[in-house]
């Protein structure tokens, strides 16, 4: 049976929303206080969902410890307590949480091979969150059938 397993992780980082394509005035119009010159920070919650057949012996979609280690190494250690604007991957891009969410999904999907990564959801504050890919997780299915453990 196919089930979905999710873990939530926390990381704190700063960013500034400012596009070089806009004038200073236009940046303020578009991004408001998020464009303040010296940036600001958030306690992000990164929710990672993987899916797959529940292993008949272990009862798991994947080993949680392996997911934790992967997210810690690839995402938390890289972005935690940093300025997102300075990350080379965001060079020339605005590190909105939409963009951050897509980046985390793309980075994890390249390296985590113990189950199918189906969703990254990031809460920037308690009041806003972003998900990628959009749509029902059950509809976002790939051909690959990774098995647990």
């Amino acid at each position, binding site marked *: 049976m196919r089930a*979905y397993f*999710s873990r939530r992780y926390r990381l704190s980082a700063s960013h500034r929303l400012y596009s070089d394509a806009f004038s200073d005035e236009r940046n303020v119009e578009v991004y408001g206080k998020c464009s303040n010159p010296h940036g600001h920070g958030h306690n992000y919650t990164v929710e990672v969902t993987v899916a797959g057949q529940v292993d008949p012996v272990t009862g798991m979609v994947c080993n949680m410890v392996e997911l934790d280690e992967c997210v810690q190494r690839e995402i938390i250690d890289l972005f935690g307590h940093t300025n997102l604007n300075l990350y080379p991957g965001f060079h020339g891009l605005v590190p909105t949480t939409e963009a951050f969410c897509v980046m985390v999904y793309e980075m994890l999907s390249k390296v985590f091979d113990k189950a199918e990564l189906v969703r990254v959801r990031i809460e920037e504050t308690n009041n806003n969150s972003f998900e990628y890919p959009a749509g029902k997780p059950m509809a976002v299915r790939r051909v690959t059938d990774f098995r647990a453990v």
Partner: protein
Amino acid sequence: MILLTRRAEFSASHYYWVDAWTPEENARLFGKCSNRNGHGHNYTLEVTVEGEIDTTSGFVVDLKVLKAVIEREVLRDFDHRHLNIEVPEFKALLPTTENVAIAIWNRLAPHILGARLQRVRVYEMPDLFADYYGEP
């Protein structure tokens, strides 16, 4: 079509152990969860049903009925119990969060009248949860 979710809580103990494995193998895969004296969680269960809104009542399902079904089919057997020992589904199946979600789905699905069970979500703790949509 609209989704409606009812939340419930239960507290239970469990442990993870595969008899065919050595104690070292169990400890390696399951870590602290392999302590055979068990440990406990406050689980949060979210039951989501989907259906059309009844033109007279304005309901998808009657929440009182849904609450009673969850109470009778799940909470009565799961709350303040040891899942490995006291819940029949887990006599030969590890009570992982994934398997708990599937077991709860199987208990509830025949009793959701007038709507379709869409998702069972089980939080073992706020940062760890499993979803089951009834998929094979």
